[in-house]
C-alpha cells in the first residue's frame, strides 16, 4: 500500500494478514480531525455452531472495480480526506481480520456514517464469497 498526498482512496485485495498500523498511518491528513478504522474478524460462534476458519473467494477484477466505485462514492458523499478498504482472500483463521475499512475526515460524523454505509454496500454488491469451515468438518458457502 503506497498512498501519497494525492491518493484519497486505496482499495486492495490481499492474500495475507491485514496490518492495522500502515492503514492508520495512511489516513494521515493535517485537515482530518477524525480517523476511524473498522476490522471485521473471523468469529468463533454463530448461533449454536462453531467456526474453525473461513475461506474467501472473489471475482477479483470485478471485486476491485466495485470496491473502487463504492470507496469513491463514499469519499464524494462525505467529503472524506482518505478512504482505505482492504479485503483478505483465502483462509482467514479465528480472530484474524477479513476486512478493514478506514476513513479520515474533518469531523467525526462523516467517518461514523461513511464506514457502516461502505460495509453494508460491500456486503450487498461486491463479488466476494465466504465459505464457512465449521469445527465439525462440514463446509458451506454463506448465502445471506
Amino acid at each position, binding site marked *: 500500500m503506497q498512498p501519497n498526498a494525492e491518493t484519497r482512496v486505496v482499495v486492495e485485495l490481499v492474500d495475507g494478514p491485514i496490518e492495522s498500523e500502515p492503514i492508520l498511518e495512511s489516513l494521515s491528513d493535517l485537515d482530518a480531525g477524525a480517523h476511524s478504522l473498522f476490522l*471485521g474478524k473471523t468469529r468463533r460462534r454463530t448461533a449454536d455452531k462453531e467456526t474453525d476458519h473461513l475461506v*474467501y*473467494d*472473489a*471475482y477479483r*477484477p*470485478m*471485486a476491485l*472495480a466495485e470496491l473502487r466505485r463504492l470507496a469513491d462514492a463514499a469519499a464524494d458523499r462525505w467529503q472524506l480526506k482518505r478512504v482505505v478498504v482492504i*479485503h483478505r482472500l483465502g483462509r482467514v483463521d479465528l480472530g484474524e481480520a*477479513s*476486512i478493514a475499512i478506514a476513513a479520515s475526515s474533518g469531523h467525526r460524523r462523516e467517518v461514523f456514517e461513511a464506514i457502516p454505509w461502505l*460495509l453494508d454496500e*460491500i*456486503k*450487498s*454488491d*461486491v*463479488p*466476494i*464469497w*465466504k*465459505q464457512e469451515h465449521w469445527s465439525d468438518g462440514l463446509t458451506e*458457502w*454463506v*448465502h*445471506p
Partner: protein
Amino acid sequence: MTDSQSTIEVAMFAAAQALVGSDSVTLTLPAGATAGEVLVQLGQRCPELQGLLPACRLAVDLQYVAADHLISPGAQLALIPPVSGG
C-alpha cells in the same frame, strides 16, 4: 453453429462453481441474446443450478446488468451468486 450464433463462456464462482463442478460453462447464444436468456439457458444446460439461479445476478464486462442487456460477442460473462464478503 451458424453465423447468427456465438459461443460464450460464463465464469462460475463459489456455490455455483461447486454445483456445476467447473469454473466456467460454455453456452451457444443466438445473435441478439439478452442477459435474461443467458440465465434461462444456464438453467436448462445445468439443472443443478436451478435452485440457486433466482438469487444470482449476471455480470457483463465487470458490471451487473439487467435482464434486457444485449450480450455482445466476446463479452466477459460471470454468474454472481449472492455475495457474502466483509
